[in-house]
């Protein structure tokens, strides 16, 4: 008799059973996935910064849609709206005289592309005769621990204005209707001074760390005025990752997964049954042999 054969048979039996158990296990359903779909949004605010232009109605259209998504009525000089959260996409901003029907042709319009997480200011600037819509990219993020400031010059009385933060110039001889880029300044309370040829004004403005600001220089009948806007604010320090906010007391869970045990049971049972079937077959053949012998 070949000595290897029985061992090999045992191994073959075990192997077949393992394969079968493996197939059964593979049929188990995959874990559920729950993708969190989220529509990306950006931010948009509207401003009227043309001193001799009468109040306007401002319309915001999603490109390709003639129904206005947002209408801001009676926006007068010096008004800056709060930021609106808008879905990412292309938009048209249109201005009509205050109270004019929405079907009337707009005085002015421009397009703006809103990107995810970005903020924009669409401002009517310049004199009434040369009114235009400026699309400004607003910065939300500062260098660590700093404050960012920019200046919009919207005074027609003083054609050129210089704006100082203490001894630091934020804008030098800035022409009417123009905007500076952001300047990084040390955080704190700033003494902001705006001066033209004849008029000047000053204001104490809080510039906390990690905030961005727009200083708007405006005409107030007879003198200059400063409108400090906070564009955005961040955290002093971004925590890394999520938060460890649970101890598991409400999490239903098995002491250990029953799956390996179930697999072992199934595998064992298969082996045993297969072997028993074989044995029975063998015994029958013995019996047959035995009766022949007798």
């Amino acid at each position: 008799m070949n000595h290897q054969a029985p061992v090999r048979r045992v191994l073959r039996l075990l192997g077949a059973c393992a394969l079968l158990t493996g197939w059964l296990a593979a049929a188990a359903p995959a874990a559920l996935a729950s993708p969190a779909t989220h529509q990306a949004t950006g931010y948009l605010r509207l401003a009227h910064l043309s001193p001799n232009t009468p109040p306007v109605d401002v319309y915001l259209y999603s490109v390709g849609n003639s129904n206005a998504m947002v209408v801001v009525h009676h926006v007068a000089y010096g008004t800056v709206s709060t930021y609106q959260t808008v879905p990412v996409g292309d938009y048209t901003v249109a201005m009509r005289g205050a109270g004019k029907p929405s079907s009337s042709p707009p005085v002015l319009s421009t397009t703006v592309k809103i990107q995810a997480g970005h903020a924009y200011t669409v401002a009517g600037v310049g004199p009434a005769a040369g009114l235009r819509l400026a699309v400004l990219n607003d910065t939300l993020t500062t260098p660590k621990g700093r404050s960012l400031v920019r200046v919009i010059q919207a005074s027609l009385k003083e054609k050129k204005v210089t704006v100082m933060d203490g001894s630091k110039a934020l804008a030098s001889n800035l022409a009417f209707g123009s905007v500076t880029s952001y300047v990084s300044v040390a955080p704190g309370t700033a003494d902001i001074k705006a001066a033209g040829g004849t008029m000047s004004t000053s204001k104490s403005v809080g510039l906390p760390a990690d905030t961005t600001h727009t200083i708007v220089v405006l005409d107030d009948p007879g003198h200059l005025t400063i409108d400090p806007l906070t564009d955005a604010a961040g955290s002093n320090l971004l925590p890394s990752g999520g938060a460890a906010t649970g101890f598991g007391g409400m999490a239903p869970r098995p002491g250990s997964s029953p799956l390996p045990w179930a697999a072992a049971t199934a595998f064992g049972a298969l082996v045993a049954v297969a072997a028993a079937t074989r044995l029975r077959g063998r015994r029958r053949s013995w019996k047959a042999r035995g009766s022949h012998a007798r």
Partner: protein
Amino acid sequence: MGLTSRGPRPSGPRLADAGAGTAPARRKHRRPHLSLLALVGRPAVVAAGIGLVLAGSGVAGLLMASHRDYTPPRVGPVKPVLAPAGRPQTPVPQTSAHASAPVSLTIPSIGVRSRLIRLGITKSGALQVPATTTVAGWYTGSPRPGAIGSSVIVGHVDSFTGPGIFYRLHLLHPRNLIYVRQKDGRLAVFRVSSVHQYTKRGFPTVKVYGPAPTPQLRLITCGGTFDVQTGHYLSNIVVYATIAS
């Protein structure tokens, strides 16, 4: 190896010889002996033995595993919490980076009412969490609730034995209201815009904690699968809310 070639077979006949004189008797005796001893040597019998032992241990393991199952305590329905009385913050200071410090949080729809403790950052740079599971906390590095920016409030989903202050946070829906009482008595009202679950590995740090141009709130707790090995949940639930205008 060698299961069939091991010793017993030659000794069988000898034992049988001792007890029997005649040939027919000898054959009768020999059969049972032979099969008993040979059984051990048969591959099918060995396989059956292995199978039975495996199945037995599998059943035992199953019983043990199910015995050690942890079922959390039952929690009753939401206890009603009234929206805080008092003048809401009007006008909402949307153009201000200033708001007075937060003192308490109320979320009527999920029965949350908690004072707000102060939280910072741990040595490893992660968000500090409240020492007790029954109170929520405001991360002082983030803007104050009601001021421009993303204000961060954190609470536990559970303790070792029961629900925490933010146990039902994941049940919030867009448009649910969140109230934060400020130190000066004013009330900042937020409206839920979305609820998300992120794996801690894929946590969108900048999206959650980063700068924002409007007053926003982030409520954070744990969710998803609890990892018994590390003792932590694998995901975070983040509720995004914006100031109600």
